[in-house]
């Protein structure tokens, strides 16, 4: 029974990793931009939610509705005024800019919020659990997984069922030709980063309720997100979910054998997938 429990807990953990990774996957899929500051932007969103909670006395679940549009604006502005200027044939400049951004965000948050460890309080629901047969499942981890599925479903609908999504795909395939058809790639990029920041805000909500956060914690949380994106197949959103869950389950199984192997097991799963399928589980297109 413990094995069933271990796998279920691993899947739930995978939901959190998939949420971290979804925004990253979106941005990479559309503009081939690896955003090294994604983890720090999630922490920034968490502090934003915290500020709204403290000032307006709202529940974090409501506060997210206020924080999300703000993060969309931040993402839009970031892309328009910073990242668009460095995007080009060379992948190095945007990489360096996001690396610098990560340092700036960390130190900015440190200045504004101090290094105190913070947490979003969701009330009694934090410790609530559902008995599912012989195992008990926490309500919050379950909500995290459901949110991850919903977010990825919604992003997929956006991608394949809307005009904006068509613009996203067209720009992703060939920005120059898309430009000839009347799409402004830079605008599309800005909207995509905005949406990625909205997803980051949702990730921040669950991160902030699950564990403490402080300004310096972003990069540590990012590595699993990177792995999820890569083993899922670059640009595939469902692949990102699968990748997140795979890492979550691998970590849980590793920990069940010996907690020293928990993190290592996740990394080994990552390497194994890449050995067998170098382009990830569900690569989107041949590019």
């Amino acid at each position: 029974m413990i094995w069933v429990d271990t796998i279920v807990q691993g899947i739930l953990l995978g939901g959190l990793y998939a949420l971290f990774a979804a925004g990253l996957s979106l941005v990479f899929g559309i503009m081939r931009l690896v955003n090294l500051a994604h983890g720090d932007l999630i922490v920034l969103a968490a502090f934003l939610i915290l500020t709204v909670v403290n000032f307006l006395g709202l529940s974090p679940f409501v506060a997210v509705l206020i924080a999300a549009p703000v993060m969309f604006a931040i993402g839009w502005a970031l892309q328009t005024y910073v990242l668009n200027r460095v995007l080009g044939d060379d992948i190095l400049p945007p990489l360096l800019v996001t690396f610098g951004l990560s340092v700036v965000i960390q130190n900015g948050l440190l200045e504004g919020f101090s290094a105190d460890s913070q947490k979003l309080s969701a009330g009694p629901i934090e410790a609530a659990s559902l008995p599912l047969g012989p195992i008990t499942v926490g309500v919050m981890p379950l909500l995290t997984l459901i949110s991850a599925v919903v977010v990825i479903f919604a992003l997929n609908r956006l991608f394949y069922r809307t005009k904006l999504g068509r613009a996203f795909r067209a720009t992703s395939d060939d920005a120059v030709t898309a430009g000839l058809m009347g799409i402004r790639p830079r605008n599309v990029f800005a909207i995509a980063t905005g949406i990625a920041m909205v997803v980051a805000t949702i990730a921040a909500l669950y991160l902030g309720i699950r564990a403490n956060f402080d300004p310096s914690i972003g990069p540590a949380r990012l590595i699993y997100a990177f792995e999820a994106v890569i083993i899922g197949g670059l640009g595939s959103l469902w692949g990102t979910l699968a990748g997140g869950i795979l890492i979550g389950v691998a970590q849980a199984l590793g920990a069940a054998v010996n907690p020293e192997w928990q993190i290592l097991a996740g990394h080994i799963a990552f390497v194994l997938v890449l050995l067998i399928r170098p382009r990830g589980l569900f690569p989107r297109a041949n590019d």
Partner: protein
Amino acid sequence: MLSRRTFLKTGAATAAGALAMPALAKSGPIKIGYVSPQTGPLSGFAATDVYVIETFVKTARAQGVEVEVIVKDSQSNPNRAAEVARELIVRDEVNLICVASTPETTNPVCTIAEAEEVPVISTVAPWQPWFIGQQGNPADPASWQDFDYVHHFFWGLEDNVQVFMNMWDMIDSNKSVGALWPNDGDGNAWASDVGMPPALAGAGYTLTDTGRYQNLTDDFSAQINAFKQNDVQILTGIPIPPDFTTFWTQAKQQGFQPKMVSVAKALLFPESVAALGPLAHNLTCEVWWSPMHPFTSSLTGQSCADLAGEFEDYAGRQWTQPLGFIHSLFEVAMDAIRRADDPTDGDEMAELIGTTNIDSAVGKIQWGRDNVPPFARANVSKTPLVGGQWRMQGDGGFDLVIVENGLAPEIALTGTLETLS
């Protein structure tokens, strides 16, 4: 544009400045360097620094001693700590260094100062990692040597283990202990042969130790399952605060309900406790200093309560445990300066610090006492440690109640130990 000419000019100017320094230092104020982790993950320890240093400089001036404190930030990084220590010694030419908070800060600074023959007063790191960690071969006790220039005051691992076990002896339990020891310096020390396992075995407790996990782990289901299987009623460990939050929330979700939780490090600061919310009610931790401690500062004559009160007014936030210790660093410094013929003479200062005997805000500070093993006696002075329990107040804030004082009966209890279930 930096041309050869301007480079030579500025170079000459800096060189001249550096040459002029020693002459200035002789007549000027006594220079004290201070190193602590003011930014980064350890910065919670340094929250009271600004207040303490400001008070110290003001008080010293009022007592007719001109001091200048040069503050350096270790950025929670041991390499950076070593670098700023070297800067303090070589560039600023300080007469004395005070250093605080975690072996990652104290050890690099002390090692460099010992080599450079500059006196150091150090605190807020259990003495084993401080003393043994600085030895050339920590595994071979025969090779350990004491130091001439560095002195440390704090408690040790054995005190913390004792305080926790005293608390557990006070409750009715099945004596089954679960441990959460991470794979870092602290976790490995606690799990080692000089840490908790032998003490537990000696006192008839059974231990469930699932192994060293990585810091910033997102899932503790494996540990929780093992604890549930072995019917663990007492939980202990030394996790970092984010990990304890993850663990404790998951434990609640998965129905693990110990009677007693005694966790070191994660529950030190009121902020980390408040972050847990109602889940933190009645968790226990080690207490090195509190406003309830019956000590008086030798520097300002304030009681602990006055010191904490003044800090809270100054900073607008709750007191934290390092307050008393960082204040006491400067008590020791001031005491040595008062007794010195020439406070700028490093050899004399180091010797005078070694003969300190003061009643400070953290209790008696005197090196060479017999409550420390002989090999470390010359450099380590132990301060008392008691056990505390966080109690939630009506307004959602938390108060630290002292519930165990077996090692330091002079510190009065302010409440009785309560179990979680």
